[in-house]
C-alpha cells in the first residue's frame, strides 16, 4: 500500500496563520481520501509546517479505489425477453449495467419478475483522483488575508506558491496550482541549504531529507528544540530563567525552520525603566524573551530565537546586532520617558483636545469630561448604598486617565496605554490610589485577565466603558454580526466581569442611567438586549452554565449581574430534581394556555398581566388548594428571594408540584362559564407570575 505525501511551498507565510492552515490542509486531505474511498483502515496521518511550507503525509492510502458492486433492477422480464431471447430492452439494460447479456438474471419482486444485473464499477487510479482533488482543496484553503500575484488574477492565496510536491509511493501525482506543476522535489533552508532542490524518492524520506537540508518540518519538534535552546542559552546566568511566554514560543516556532537561540545583554542602566516598558519592547517589538534572576527580578539579558545555526563568529555577530537594536529601542524608551516627565499629566489634560476619540463624539478631552460625569454618578449611587471608596482619588484618576495618550511613550508603545499613565502618576507622586486606578483602567481586556485590584480602578474601568458604549450606541455604532470595530462587546464583557467578581451594588440600568448621553427609549432597549447577551455569554462561556439554565434565569431578569449568577447557581443545583422538572412542565403548559387564550381573544394580555382571581369563584377543591398553597408559599418564597436564598426558594417552589398536578388533573380551565374561565386563567397566571421571578422554568429543557 503506497504512502502519500503532499507539500505546498510558498514565500514566507505569516506566522499567525500557519497552525490553522496546517490543520485545515490535513483535514481537507483526509476528507478527500475518505470521500474518494482511498483510505485503508490502518491509515496514519502526520502534518507538517514551516514558514515556507505546509505538508501532509498519509500512510496507508490505496493505489486505486476498490471496485464497487451495485445490484441493478431493469425492465420487466416479460418485456425484455421473448422466451429466452433477449430483446432490445435487455440489450440496452446490459449496456447500462456494463455487463454481458448472458449475465442478466431474473429477480422476483412484489410487483413481479424483472431483469436484474450485478454492475461492477471499476475503481479509478488514486493518482488520477488525487490529481483532480488536491488542487481544489488547495484553492479552498482559508487565509485571513489573501493576495493575487499572477497576471489576470487567476487565484488568491496567502503568498505566491513556489513549488508543490505530491507523491503516491514513488510516483508524482500531477497536481497544478498557481501555475506550479507538482514534482518530487522540495527545498531546504533558504540560507543554510540554498536553492538546490531536494528530490524525495518516497514519502517516508521527507522529514529526514529536510532535516539534512536544515529544515525541521515537525512543529512540535521545533517548539521543543526552541525551549531547549532557550534553556541552554540562559544557563550561563546562575539561577536565571527565561520568562515563560507560551504565545511568544508559538510565534517564533512559526518564524523558523532551523531554530537556535542566542543570549544577549543590555546595560543595567536600562533596568531603571519600568519592567512593563522593557518587556513590551523585548516581547512585542523584538520577539525576545525576557530573562529573570533567581529572585524573579528582570535581569539585564534577553534571548533571541534565530532562524539559523551560526558558528561562534556568526553568533557573536548576531548577538552584537540584536544588542544594538535593543539598545536603540531602550534608548528611545528612555528618551521618551525623560521627555514625557517634562510635562506633568495635569498639564496634558488640555492637550487631549487634539486627540480624536471619535469624529462624531469629539476628542478625548470631551471623553474625559463625560467620564468624570459618569464616574460621579456611579460614585453617588455607591455612596447611597454604603460602599466606601476614595472619591477624590477616583475623580483625580478619571480626570487624568487618558492623558497618557499624549505621551511619546504611549505613541510608541500603544499597547501600554493606561499602564504608562499609571507609572507616570506614581512617578509624579499623585498618590498610589490614583496611580493604581489609571494603571488598571483597561483591564480586563480578555476574559481571563484580572480585574483592577482597587475599587477606584474598578469604577473607573466601568465608567469609561459604559460611557463609550452608550455614546456609540447613541450614534448607531452598535456591533452587528461579526462587525465590532470599536470592540464594544469586549468593553461590555469587561463590565460584566468586574460586576461579577466584585461586590459593587450596581445594576446594568444603574450604569445606563449614569452615562451623560441619555439614550432614547429605543436605544436603551438595544443596550439592555446587548448587555443581556453579554451576560449570557459570561454565564455560558466563563461560568459554564447550561444554555437553558441561562435562558431561564435571564428571562426572570438580566439587570443585576451578581444576582443573575446567584440564581443560575441555585437553579443549576436543583434543576435535576423530579419536582422541579414537573413544575417546569406545568409552567410551560400554563404559558401555552395563556398564550392561546390571548390569541383567541378569551382574555387580553393586560388581564393576564394583572393575574387577578377571586377566592369566591374557586369551585373545585383542587383549585382552592392550589390558591391557598400558592398564597402561603408566595410570602415564604418572597422572603427567601429577598435574602437571596435562591436554592431554598426554588426548593419551596418545587413543593407546589402536587397541587399543580392535581389542578391540571381535575380542573378544566377553559370552561364555558365565562366568570369561572376568567377566574381560572387569573389563578394560573398568578401562579406563573409569582413563581417565575427567580427563573422562568418554562425555559428549562427536560433531560
Amino acid at each position, binding site marked *: 500500500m503506497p504512502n502519500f505525501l503532499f507539500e505546498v511551498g510558498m514565500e514566507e507565510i505569516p506566522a499567525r496563520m500557519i497552525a490553522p492552515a496546517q490543520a485545515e490542509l490535513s483535514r481537507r486531505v483526509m476528507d478527500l481520501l475518505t470521500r474518494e474511498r482511498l483510505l485503508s483502515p490502518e491509515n496514519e496521518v502526520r502534518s507538517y509546517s514551516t514558514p515556507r511550507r505546509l505538508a501532509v503525509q498519509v500512510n496507508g492510502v490505496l493505489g486505486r479505489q476498490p471496485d464497487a458492486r451495485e445490484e441493478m433492477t431493469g425492465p420487466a422480464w416479460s418485456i425484455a425477453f421473448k422466451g429466452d431471447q433477449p430483446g432490445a430492452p435487455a440489450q440496452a439494460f446490459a449496456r447500462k449495467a456494463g455487463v454481458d447479456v448472458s449475465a442478466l438474471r431474473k429477480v422476483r419482486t412484489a410487483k413481479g419478475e424483472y431483469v436484474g444485473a450485478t454492475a461492477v464499477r471499476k475503481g479509478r487510479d488514486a493518482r488520477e483522483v488525487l490529481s483532480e482533488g488536491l488542487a481544489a482543496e488547495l484553492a479552498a484553503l482559508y487565509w485571513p488575508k489573501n493576495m493575487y500575484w499572477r497576471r489576470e488574477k487567476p487565484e488568491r492565496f496567502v503568498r505566491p506558491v513556489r513549488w508543490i510536491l505530491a507523491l503516491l509511493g514513488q510516483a508524482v501525482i500531477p497536481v497544478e496550482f498557481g501555475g506550479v506543476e507538482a514534482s518530487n522535489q522540495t527545498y531546504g533552508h533558504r540560507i543554510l541549504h540554498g536553492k538546490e532542490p531536494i528530490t524525495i524518492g518516497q514519502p517516508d524520506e521527507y522529514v529526514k531529507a529536510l532535516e539534512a537540508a536544515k529544515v525541521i518540518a515537525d512543529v512540535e519538534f521545533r517548539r521543543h528544540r526552541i525551549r531547549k535552546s532557550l534553556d541552554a542559552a540562559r544557563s550561563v546566568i546562575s539561577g536565571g530563567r527565561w520568562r515563560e511566554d507560551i504565545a511568544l514560543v508559538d510565534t517564533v516556532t512559526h518564524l*523558523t525552520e532551523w531554530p537556535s537561540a542566542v543570549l544577549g545583554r543590555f546595560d543595567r542602566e536600562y533596568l531603571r525603566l519600568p519592567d512593563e516598558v522593557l518587556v513590551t519592547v523585548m516581547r512585542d517589538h523584538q520577539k525576545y524573551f525576557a530573562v529573570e534572576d533567581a529572585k524573579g527580578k528582570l535581569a539585564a539579558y534577553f534571548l533571541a530565537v*534565530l532562524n539559523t545555526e551560526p558558528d561562534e563568529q556568526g553568533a557573536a555577530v548576531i548577538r552584537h546586532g540584536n544588542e544594538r*537594536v535593543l539598545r536603540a529601542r531602550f534608548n528611545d524608551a528612555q528618551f521618551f520617558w525623560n521627555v514625557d516627565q517634562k510635562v506633568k499629566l495635569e498639564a496634558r489634560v488640555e492637550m487631549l483636545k487634539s486627540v480624536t476619540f471619535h469624529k462624531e463624539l469629539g476628542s478625548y478631552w470631551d471623553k474625559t469630561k463625560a467620564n468624570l460625569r459618569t464616574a460621579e454618578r456611579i460614585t453617588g449611587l455607591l455612596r447611597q448604598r454604603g460602599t466606601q471608596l476614595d472619591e477624590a482619588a477616583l475623580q483625580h484618576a478619571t480626570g487624568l486617565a487618558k492623558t497618557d495618550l499624549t505621551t511619546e511613550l504611549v505613541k510608541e508603545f500603544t499597547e501600554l496605554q493606561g499602564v504608562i499613565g499609571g507609572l507616570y502618576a506614581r512617578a509624579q507622586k499623585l498618590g498610589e490610589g490614583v496611580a493604581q486606578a489609571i494603571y488598571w483602567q483597561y483591564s480586563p481586556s480578555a476574559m481571563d485577565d484580572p480585574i483592577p485590584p482597587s475599587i477606584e480602578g474598578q469604577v473607573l474601568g466601568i465608567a469609561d466603558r459604559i460611557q463609550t458604549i452608550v455614546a456609540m450606541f447613541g450614534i448607531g455604532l452598535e456591533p452587528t454580526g461579526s462587525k465590532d470595530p470599536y470592540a464594544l462587546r469586549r468593553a461590555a464583557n469587561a463590565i460584566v466581569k468586574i460586576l461579577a467578581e466584585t461586590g459593587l451594588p450596581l445594576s446594568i440600568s444603574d450604569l445606563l442611567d449614569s452615562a451623560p448621553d441619555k439614550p432614547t427609549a429605543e436605544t436603551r432597549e438595544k443596550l439592555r438586549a446587548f448587555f443581556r447577551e453579554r451576560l449570557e455569554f459570561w454565564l455560558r462561556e466563563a461560568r459554564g452554565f447550561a444554555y437553558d439554565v441561562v435562558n431561564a434565569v435571564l428571562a426572570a431578569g438580566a439587570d443585576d449581574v451578581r444576582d443573575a449568577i446567584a440564581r443560575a447557581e441555585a437553579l443549576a443545583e436543583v434543576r435535576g430534581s423530579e419536582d422541579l422538572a414537573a413544575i417546569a412542565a406545568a409552567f410551560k403548559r400554563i404559558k401555552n394556555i395563556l398564550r392561546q387564550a390571548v390569541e383567541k381573544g378569551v382574555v387580553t394580555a393586560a388581564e393576564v398581566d394583572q393575574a387577578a382571581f377571586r377566592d369566591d369563584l374557586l369551585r373545585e377543591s383542587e383549585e382552592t388548594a392550589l390558591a391557598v398553597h400558592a398564597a402561603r408559599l408566595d410570602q415564604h418564597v418572597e422572603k427567601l428571594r429577598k435574602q437571596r436564598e435562591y436554592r431554598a426558594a426554588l426548593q419551596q417552589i418545587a413543593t407546589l408540584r402536587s397541587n399543580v398536578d392535581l389542578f391540571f388533573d381535575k380542573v378544566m380551565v377553559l370552561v364555558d362559564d365565562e366568570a369561572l374561565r376568567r377566574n381560572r386563567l387569573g389563578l394560573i397566571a398568578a401562579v406563573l407570575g409569582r413563581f417565575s421571578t427567580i427563573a422562568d422554568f418554562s425555559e428549562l429543557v427536560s433531560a
Partner: protein
Amino acid sequence: MASLSGAHKAPTFQELLLRLQTFWAERGCVLSQPYDMEVGAGTMSPDTFLRVLGPDPVAIAYTQPSRRPADGRYGENPNRLYKHLQLQVILKPPPDDIQEIYLKSLEAIGIRLHEHDIKFEEDNWEWPVGGAWGVGWQVMLDGLEITQFTYFQQCGGMDLDPISGEITYGLERIAAFLQDVESIYDIVWARDPRTGREVKYGEIRLQEELQLSVYNFEAADVGKLWEHLRLYESECQELLDSFHQSFKTEKKSERHEKIHGRVVHGGETPADEDVRKAMRRFPLLGAYELCLKCSHLFNLLDARGAISVTERVAVMARIRNMVVGVAKAYAAQKLGTGAA
C-alpha cells in the same frame, strides 16, 4: 579582526547607495532620480504611485528623501530623522525569484548571509489616503528591520493587474548597522580615497534636521499653511473637474472603452484624434503634484498640532478624494489615449 557587524569592509553611505543602485541596474532597472518634491515615503513618488497602475511592465529603482515632519527630533535622537532616505525598487510584474534577488542585493552590500539571522516577518502596507494597500514582510536582519517588502494589490482604490513588487530599503539604518555606529549622525557618508578624510552624515544633514525641526514644530506659520493647503487643493480640484468635463469620464469607463475601441480598430475620425490629443496633454501629473503639496502641508499642520479633531478626519478625506481622483483619472487617461 573582522568587525562585529559582519561586514568585512563596511561601505560608506554613498558606497551603499552606489552598490545597491548598481546591483539593480545590472538586473534591468532604470535608475530614475529622486522626485524633487516633498513626499512622506518613496511610494508617493509618481514613479511608484502612478507607474504601478495599468498593464505596462516596470523595472525602476530610485532613492527618495522622505519627509515626516512629526518624526523630527532636532537632530538630538540618534535613531530618528525628519528626513530619511529610502531606496525604492518597483518591479512589475515581480519576478518569481524576487526574494532571492533581494537576498543577493544584501550580499552586494557586504552582508554575508551565512553569518546573520534573516527573517521575513508579516507586515502589510497600507496608505489609506492613496487608496493603496499590499501584503508583504518586514525583512529582519539580526533583529533590525532593514527592508519593507510589499506586493501591491490596490492603488487609487483600483485593483492592480499585474501587481507590482516593491522593495524599500531603509538606508540610514542599514548604513548604521554595517558601519556599527550608534548614531545615524556618525555614519560615514564619504571617505576621500586620496586622504582618507571622512565626512559624516551629521556634517551633511544635522543642521537641516535641527532647523527644519524648529520650522516644523515651532516656526511654520499655521495660518499661511492653511492658506497654501486651500490654494493647492482648489487648483487640484479645478484641474480634476476640468478633466472630467472635457472627457466625460465621470460616466464610468464607457467612453474610454469606446475611444479605446476605435483606436484599436483604427477607424477614428478627426474629432477622436483631437480628443485623444487633448487628453494626452492634459496635466494630470500637475494635479498629482498639487496632491503631494497638500499631503505635505497636512503633515506640517499635524506636526504643529494645528489640526483639530473635526478638521483632521475631514481634511484627510479631502486629500484622499484628490489623490484617488487623480489616480483614477490617470488610469482613464492612459486607457483613453492608448498610451499604454
